[in-house]
């Protein structure tokens, strides 16, 4: 019957979106990080990371070590920052971190929220960098920053969806 065909067609579309989303969520659960894969947006960690590198994060470490590269988020600012741990202080309950970008002249005190002097390892971190792929993520930078690229890709996707079957 026609209704079933329509339902199946819509389901195929929904499956493309839902499977990608659920794989992402599964990865989040495994790594305990709300974004287990991030793209480097700034040059503040050069020469270690360039803009467009893809980083794989892990957020189940008990403690960070000096020299680890961590991704953190400041409350109220939703942009994750990738910087290196410069100093750490810890006792049995918690660990406090000070970070700095390799390519920055000063540490991150100025980037933290008002009156915040440190990062809390347990709550502020998105994850610790465990691996990376160079350059691959540059596509997302192009998509967000270059309007011609964005509409070009949209156009190509539209045309290809018109021309392909199955």
């Amino acid at each position, binding site marked *: 019957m026609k209704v079933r065909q329509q339902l199946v067609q819509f*389901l195929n579309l929904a*499956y493309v979106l839902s499977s990608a989303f*659920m794989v992402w969520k599964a990865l989040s659960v495994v790594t305990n990080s709300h974004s287990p894969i991030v793209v480097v947006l700034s040059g503040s960690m050069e020469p270690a990371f360039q803009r467009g590198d893809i980083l794989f994060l892990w957020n189940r470490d008990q403690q960070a070590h000096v020299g680890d590269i961590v991704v953190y988020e400041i409350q109220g600012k939703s942009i994750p920052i990738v910087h290196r741990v410069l100093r750490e202080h810890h006792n049995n309950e918690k660990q406090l971190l000070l970070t700095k970008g390799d390519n920055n002249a000063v540490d991150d005190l100025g980037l933290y929220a008002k009156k915040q002097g440190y990062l809390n390892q347990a709550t502020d971190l998105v994850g610790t960098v465990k691996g990376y792929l160079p350059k691959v993520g540059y596509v997302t930078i192009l998509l967000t920053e270059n309007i011609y690229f964005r509409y070009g890709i949209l156009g190509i996707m539209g045309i290809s969806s018109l021309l392909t079957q199955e």
Partner: protein
Amino acid sequence: MSALKRTNLNSVVQLRTTVDDNLNTSLSALGYNESFTLIDTKIALGYSTAIIAGGLYFYDKKYGFDETFNLTVVAVLAYFAISGILWYYTSTPQYKNVKYVGFNDKKEKITIATWTSKFEPVYYVQITTSEGQRIDAQFEFMKLFDGMGYYKEEQLTKLIKAELEKVNKKSI
């Protein structure tokens, strides 16, 4: 239904889709009633995965990752469990490519699986009867469509009927 619709003769996929869509007509001419149990099961399973994913998306958007962590674990497990069951009904040999399930008046079941290969204008059909007999047949699309791309329904009916009769003779 598709009596007035032309099919693109250059696309194997479109030819197959047209014939698949019209299997029901041919089989009801042969005295079979389509059973929707399998397809309905698949649709229900598929939509429950979509609902889980959609619900998780909104819940996560509203409350954030940390607060919804336990729910996310449950949703992820449920999603992949249901997807596994769905995969069983779509991809294991017993159910793969099944396009039609029907019963005749004597409650005899017939299952038809169809597929094509990419560069061959041939419609592969596998018919399984309730006695577990399996008929493999190949119909050329040339016989099922005219030169303009109009589908010839009665041709498929004839071909399937011929295949079924072969089996019935054997079994007698």
